[in-house]
């Protein structure tokens, strides 16, 4: 009798466990389900990039695809390679970075050190941040109708659409990212370190060179890595300004295409092998950008410690 009762009790406990989930458990389940959607979309996107690019990689082989500068599609003889676009992307990105470094460092020093805490710094910082929020189509339009004619007038290029023009506008677009993050790291340099240097008779410039930049250096470096990440994938502005030709760029003044801009240019009219090649370029861009962002995040994490 006793045994039977205890059996019943255990059974009813078991049943209630199964049927009535506590509100807490249900909410947690909901949270999990909703949160899982984001990584799942990411994985799904990656999977479709991989499967849709398979045709191109099978046809040309990974290395031949990456290192071939052919992009020809006369009927019956299709040859696609990503090198012109990889080079176009790298050239425009690093040229933009070169233009961006002096300006963003200056703004960062201005906002983060020299006028830190003053109204003028807040104003300059806000305006710089505002640049980050301007839609890229506006940069493109401005670049096309204002900057491009200047490049033509200077005799740098016949059409004005070239790697240089695209890079100049890209540089303006990434300055806010590099500048505001760098300013944060410059602000984080402890006052006691700066005072230690001042107390030994250092001038302000010497304090910047020997204390502030070394202490904020890894943070500033990571800020530029993130700026590179931003420039790599920028599509609209570049498409409007780079000239959209599919050969290897021979100089800063020649036209070209980036990985993003070739896709934007050709996705609508592509099918079969060509479409798969565009997907392959997308996959490579995805990988490069993920890698750059990962490196940037790791460096920021280290710098903040």
């Amino acid at each position, binding site marked *: 009798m006793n045994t039977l009762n205890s059996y019943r009790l255990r059974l009813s406990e078991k049943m209630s466990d199964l049927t009535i989930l506590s509100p807490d458990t249900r909410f947690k389940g909901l949270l999990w389900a909703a949160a899982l959607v984001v990584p799942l979309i990411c994985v799904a996107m990656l999977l479709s990039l991989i499967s849709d690019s398979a045709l191109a990689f099978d046809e040309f082989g990974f290395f031949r695809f990456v290192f071939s500068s052919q992009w020809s599609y006369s009927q019956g003889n299709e040859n696609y390679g990503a090198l012109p676009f990889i080079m176009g992307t790298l050239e425009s990105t690093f040229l933009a970075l070169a233009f961006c470094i002096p300006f963003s460092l200056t703004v960062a020093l201005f906002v983060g050190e020299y006028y830190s805490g003053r109204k003028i710094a807040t104003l300059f910082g806000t305006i710089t941040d505002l640049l980050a929020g301007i839609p890229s189509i506006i940069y493109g339009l401005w670049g096309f109708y204002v900057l491009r004619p200047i490049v033509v007038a200077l005799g740098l290029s016949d059409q004005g659409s070239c790697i240089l023009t695209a890079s100049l506008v890209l540089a303006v677009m990434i300055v806010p990212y590099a500048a505001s993050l760098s300013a944060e790291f410059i602000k984080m340099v402890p006052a006691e370190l700066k005072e230690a240097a001042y*107390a*030994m008779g250092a001038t302000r410039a010497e304090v910047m060179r020997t*204390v502030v930049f070394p202490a904020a250096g890894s943070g500033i470096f990571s800020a530029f890595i993130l700026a590179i990440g931003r420039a790599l994938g920028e599509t609209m502005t570049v498409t409007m300004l780079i000239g959209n030709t599919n050969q290897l760029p021979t100089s800063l003044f020649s036209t070209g295409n980036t990985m993003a801009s070739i896709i934007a240019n050709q996705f609508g009219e592509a099918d079969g092998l060509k479409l798969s090649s565009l997907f392959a370029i997308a996959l490579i861009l995805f990988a490069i950008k993920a890698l750059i962002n990962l490196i940037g995040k790791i460096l920021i994490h280290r710098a903040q410690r």
Partner: protein
Amino acid sequence: MENINNTILEIRDLCVAYTADKLSVSHVSTDIPRNQITAIMGPSGCGKSTLLRAINRMHELYRGIQVSGELLIDGQDLLKINAMRVRREVGMVFQRPNPFPTMSIADNVLAGYSLNGIRLEKSMRQSIVEQSLKSVGLWNEVKDSLTKRGTFLSGGQQQRLCIARALALKPKLILMDEPTSALDPIATTTIENLLVELKNEVSIIIVTHNMGQAKRISQKSLFMYLGELVEGGSTEQMFSDPADRRTKSYLSGNIG
């Protein structure tokens, strides 16, 4: 009045104001004796650190701080010459040890030279590093790790490294702003003993919260209260028979 030759620094009518309506250091005049330790005591907010930081012109790094008066070192007014030169002649040691984290131990000692753009020959560098570290009793502890970062040292060692860094520039005067308040008792004792030895090479002004410390190591004491210099004189005299009742009540633990 002490003999002028025994005075390293004459402070005359020094005032410091963070805001226009209030003097944080109010009309302070006193003499700082040469090759002695002068302690500045007083409760929090009495202006002792503010006074100290006026001497090497640190207030100029921040906006809106007004300093007036005269600071005569060998007859020359520190407030009237180039601030960078002042700071090379008047060293400073801070409350928390602050070796430069990106520099090695040796580079920290030489930081005063590299920061001022002075290039030294290798033998000169080695001798400055060795001499400075020896004078703070750190040489034997770190001579095999001179290329390691200074931040790997213990707090007390870091503070001695900071003192060595200040000494390396051969200053006439070293200002110390509660240099042991972040350290444990053993490290504090080491530094106190060190300061007593160092006073033979350099004059020292030390701001301290610790009355026992002032009594143990200083020859002259200044007591400040609400921005004013209440009294200053020989440490022995002040601790045994303070002239002002505010000093008396501070020393007996009633204020501060």
